[in-house]
């Protein structure tokens, strides 16, 4: 099935452009529940455009067509004891996401503050713009400042700037040793401990607080992890069994906390009205919100405090909280909140890459909404 479909993509883009139609770029469609659907005349399917093109472990770079499944990339890397340090999520076991989809949505896993974001791993992108031009930006090297960083600009662009054809990502050797320690702590105590430990040289590479328990992932070489285990025992944190499974479930949103939102996304009607799942990005040590939750199980805190999830039905309360601590929030399934100035820049960039407006993206809706809000507020 692996093959180069880029010529077909160009034809499809040119045809859509000529017919003044809009195309929605579609990989595995595994993140469909994250934003309201975009309006488009037809889809440009990337999944057939797949295959790993180059992977030399000593170079720490993998280059693959954008339609390559994350599962295939994970498998190839793990054979060489390497990994994508940014741990992009795969929300479904089957057709869990393509490389292009991962870059377009820009989601990073539980290790983000320590191991880097998906955007940090991007080294190069070959992109087909709205004029049907095949363009190469970046490359396969770590350091590259020739021209604007159009490659990383694709992270979080949700397809607004073109169809990615080939992507090069930085990879990292797997750690020789891993251990997770956990202990019972309130959210406030967990945040305080994370802030304290964050100033020390410990091989922490993941954190999760949920329902009164803090778990910290330690990764490094054997001796480093063993020393950290001893150091963290002083804080009452003890080794947790089957921790691989724990982080895997967290990364791919299979953790029980996320299940209600996943069910809602696949079948809203059956489950009736329920609380929205809020994704709140905050400074690491920001205090927990004062708004009430139905139960302690309705909150989950990752990234050493930098990413917080809440089930809540009062959007003004969540919005006020995010704003007060200098962060931002987004309810899964709702429009992405982008401030008016950024929305304006985004629109200008979209015009620069896609002057005829061929690409439909769920973000353009967000940009319009933000622009509308800005107009109303004047």
């Amino acid at each position, binding site marked *: 099935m692996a093959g180069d479909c880029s010529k077909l993509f160009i034809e499809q883009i040119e045809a859509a452009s000529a017919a003044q139609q809009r195309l929605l770029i579609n990989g595995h469609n595994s993140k469909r529940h994250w934003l309201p659907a975009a309006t488009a005349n037809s889809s440009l399917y990337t999944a057939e455009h797949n295959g790993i093109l180059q992977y030399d472990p000593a170079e720490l770079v993998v280059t693959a067509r954008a339609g390559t499944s994350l599962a295939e990339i994970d498998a190839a890397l793990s054979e060489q004891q390497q990994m994508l340090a940014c741990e992009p999520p795969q929300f479904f076991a089957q057709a869990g996401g393509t490389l292009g989809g991962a870059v377009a949505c820009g989601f990073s896993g539980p290790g983000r503050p320590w191991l880097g974001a998906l955007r940090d791993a991007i080294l190069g992108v070959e992109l087909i713009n709205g004029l049907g031009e*095949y363009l190469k930006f970046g490359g396969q090297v770590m350091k590259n400042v*020739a021209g604007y960083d159009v490659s990383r600009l694709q*992270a979080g662009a949700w397809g607004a700037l073109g169809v990615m054809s080939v992507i090069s990502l930085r990879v990292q050797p797997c750690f020789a040793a891993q251990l997770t320690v956990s202990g019972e702590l309130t959210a406030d105590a967990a945040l305080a401990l994370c802030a304290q430990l964050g*100033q020390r040289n410990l091989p922490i590479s993941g954190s999760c607080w949920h329902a009164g328990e803090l778990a910290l992932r330690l990764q490094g*070489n054997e001796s480093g992890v063993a020393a950290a285990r001893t150091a963290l025992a002083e804080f009452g944190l003890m080794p947790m069994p089957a921790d691989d499974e724990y982080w895997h479930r967290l990364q791919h949103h299979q953790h029980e906390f996320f299940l209600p939102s996943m069910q809602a996304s696949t079948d809203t009607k059956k489950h009736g009205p329920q609380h929205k799942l809020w994704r709140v990005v905050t400074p*690491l040590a920001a205090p927990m919100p004062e708004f009430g939750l139905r139960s302690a199980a309705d909150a989950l805190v990752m*990234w050493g405090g930098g990413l917080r999830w809440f089930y809540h039905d009062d959007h003004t309360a969540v919005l006020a909280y995010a704003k007060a601590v200098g962060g931002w929030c987004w309810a899964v399934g709702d429009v992405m909140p982008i401030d008016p100035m950024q929305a304006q820049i985004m629109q200008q960039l979209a015009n*620069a890459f896609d002057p005829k407006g061929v690409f439909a993206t769920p973000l353009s809706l967000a940009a319009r909404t933000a622009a509308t809000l800005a107009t109303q507020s004047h």
Partner: protein
Amino acid sequence: MLSAACLRHNEGMQSIANNQPNHDPQQLTEHSAPHRAVLARLQQLLPEDNIITDAAGLRPYETDGLTAIREMPWVVVLPETEAQVAQVMRCCAEHQVPVIPRGAGTGLSGGARPHRQGVVLGLSKMAEILHIDPHNRVAKVQPGVRNLAITQAAQVHGLYYAPDPSSQIACSIGGNVAENAGGVHCLKYGLTVNNVLGVRLVNAAGEIVELGGALYDNPGPDLLALVCGSEGMLGVVTEVTVALLPEPETKAVLLAGFAEVVDAGNAVAAIIGAGIIPAGMEMMDKMAVQAAEAFAKAGYPLDAEAILIIELDGAAAELATLTDEVSTLLRQHGAYRIDEAHDASTQARLWKGRKSAFPAVGRLSPDYLCMDGTIPRKALPSVLAEIDTISQRFGLAVANVFHAADGNLHPLILFDANVPGQTDKAMAMGAKVLEACVAAGGTVTGEHGVGVEKLDTMCVQFTSAELEQFVRLKAAMDPQDLLNPGKGIPTLTRCGELGGMHVHHGRLPFPELERF
């Protein structure tokens, strides 16, 4: 230490600085009515001491770290607040006067070269560390703050700012963002783009744009990454939030000597292949070693064809086994001598040779031209061999110094500008070296930026369609082309004249040239 003047004489270099777009903002002279109006307005906006118009005062601003290229600015302004930056920008936008943002002026590619009808907007007076926040592990600073000053301010909390360009005692964080500055620790800790969490900037219209914050994720396309390395062409950075890291508990520095360059290259691949990411891994060839040793007395082996300097860091427990592993790999790959340094003073001595390599090479030759290509690591032996061939063909010697960990090469081409024709020869040779880097799958600039210096080689790396996309991107954010015009991206006319431009799918360059 500054790897300052890569080229000391300016003959032959002025031609490369000419990349003005066809629609030069307005043919203004310093006495034209718009310029008089701008100056009068600037005098209202800023205190008298913050505006420089006299020749003696302007002189220090006529060049940056690429001293071969000089141009007297029309006027230099030194705002003290973001509001003043915005007002200056609005005033210049209104009268279509180019604005050249400037940090500490240490850049090596001429990115801060003034415009003779433009305003140099220096950020040196905005140099306050606004907030060091150990709990959130961030520092919020003004753009004129020196790179090293951030680490110095964070040290009391056991934290530091990781990117360390060689000019870190002098270069400013705003300039680091503009250039996406690197350093010797990039493989493990990343470049500026990987360590900056937020910026505020003033755009070409004089509006404030806020991107990111003390946050590890932001909505929408990654505009923050776009700003990093944009060479002052998309906005003027007025505030930067950087991530701070806990200082490594311990460090070890290893020096390894090799009888063959190729063995050193293989050792680099073997270390990374074994799953080890050193904090730094530097390589020098024989000529660079001999120059550095004569200059710095670092204790380098003079008979080595190549040396590696490897820095490992981490928790004490972690480091002991790591050092042994790396030593074993070095020996297995032909290192005939390995020195280990565990104390700070020996480590500093081993680093000193590498860090003074540029001035040391400067003593060998009246002038040198410094390249900044980056290649995939596996291409190291073949590209080095090709550089050698090119060197023989042109009859100019090359000393090779490079960041082996990330494939970033700094070949130094030795020449004498007083010998007629040698400057042009060195530049032609440099272009060939960069073409070899591109052919090997690399890039013409890893960390120094394009500025005005590498405009021609950009024509080799990018197709006309790609260059046009860059131009449209720039026009989207700066429709009047006022921010640092003529830098970073070559005009199609320029590439066409060089004859080296890619023609993609048989299509000729876009006909709408007047847009550029």
